């Protein structure tokens, strides 16, 4: 039950069609690193779309990388939902024996993990989303210590995310500090499109 504001605008806009290259890069790096730290099969970041009350896959490393980004599910459901609402990290093990585990998520991912760790992305007392690690290596899960590590890493990721959120971009536009030329409207959209194409090109998927 941590601060999911119902009044203030969301600091992140998962639904935004604008490709935000630095943010994608950051989130991809977060899931890649999380997966590496815990020797996991997969890792994903969900961001909270408060308007729609949904969690949205924003970046995936490992299983599901190609088709999960952009998928949504109700914010109050499943383990990720509990973490997003409670603001608490959580580790669960022995999940594969459970046929009803997180059905919506399992169906959308076509992958049911045996173990799962999840921590909230909290920055400035606000929940931005959830970082999940699927099937971490047995040595790297289940303990309070590992839970702390994941929570700390998620906190760092959230802080970084907040630094580069669209909200900050908007603020910068409204109060330009350096006095340099600011691209507006269509111009900005074109520039962002260009950036997006560039990123796709660099990542070899465009």
């Amino acid at each position: 039950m941590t601060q999911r504001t119902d009044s203030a605008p969301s600091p992140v806009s998962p639904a935004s069609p604008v490709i935000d290259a630095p943010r994608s890069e950051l989130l991809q790096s977060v899931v890649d690193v999380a997966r590496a730290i815990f020797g996991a099969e997969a890792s994903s970041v969900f961001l909270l779309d408060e308007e729609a009350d949904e969690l949205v896959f924003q970046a995936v490393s490992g299983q599901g990388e190609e088709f999960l980004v952009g998928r949504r599910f109700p914010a109050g459901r499943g383990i990720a939902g509990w973490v997003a609402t409670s603001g608490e990290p959580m580790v669960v093990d022995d999940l594969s024996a459970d046929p009803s585990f997180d059905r919506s998520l399992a169906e959308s991912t076509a992958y049911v993990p045996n173990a799962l760790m999840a921590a909230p992305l909290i920055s400035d007392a606000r929940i931005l989303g959830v970082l999940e690690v699927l099937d971490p290596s047995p040595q790297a899960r289940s303990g309070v210590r590992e839970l702390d590590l994941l929570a700390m890493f998620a906190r760092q990721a959230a802080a970084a995310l907040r630094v580069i959120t669209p909200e900050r971009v908007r603020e910068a536009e409204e109060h330009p500090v350096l006095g340099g030329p600011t691209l507006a409207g269509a111009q900005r959209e074109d520039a962002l499109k260009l950036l997006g194409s560039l990123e796709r090109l660099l990542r070899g998927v465009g």
Partner: protein
Amino acid sequence: MTTTEPAQAPAEPLRPGARTAPGQGLTWSLRGRGPDDVPVLADAGPPLGRPAGPATGRGVRVCVVDSGVERDHPLVGPLAGSWVVVKDGESGGITVEPTTTGDTCGHGTACAGIIRRTAPECEIHSVRVLGERFSGTGDILMAGLRWAVEQRFDVVNLSLSTTRTRFAQELHSLADSAYFARTVIVASAHNTPVESFPWRFASVISVGSHQEDDPELHLYNPDPPVEFFGPGQNVTVPWLGGRTIRTTGNSFATPYVAGLCARVLSAHPRMTAFQLKNALYLSAANVRHAPRPYSPPAGDTGDTRDDSEN
């Protein structure tokens, strides 16, 4: 905020005489009344705070404020009541309604299972504050907890907290009311060093997780605000679909302590909230019961250990 009347009347307190009748509280002073007018029949509680074997939680009403509880999970058994807090998107009105939906996540079922395991014969009720639209907005948690306090449950398990300071004052008053009405709120400390409520308040019993394997070990923290630690690492708990999983977190240490409270109360129904806390303190594995140290003659400041809260 409106709270609907429950369809089934809340059970009468099962511990007659345990509470001060409402409206007759000794609010401000004892003018015109003496000790004989306010007799109290005390119950010292179990020796060293440890509930005896036969204390199984029977007759104690426990409420789990969480994601709901799966119906008829073999490790939880039947629930005495199942409720949900709902917020109307347009009017903003909040109601508490009976529900047949189980658990939206598994977490509440896990908590209920730990309580059942610890106090097998207690009565478990569930009020779901998660899994509905707007359930993350804090006022749903507030409404669910308030409802539980109004129903005068003996023990409320709250493995949740809010970081939103605008709820802090209201939660504080609610926690104090519960304390005086002998509804013990057992609340999880945040897993990460985050300022949140209501676990920080002295009127609740706050619980974090220790790292020991002993499933029946609890510890007292000489350096609060987290007052107690319970088993929260690698705990096997009931989950959705009648199954079990293993999990870790303060959330799971809390229902163990809630279950302990239910056990103590079942054998000693007249105990107050502060007595209950003392029983947990005395029975904590790290609290030593050394014989009283020799009192030195006046003037000699002997080295007597002080393990009290500062």
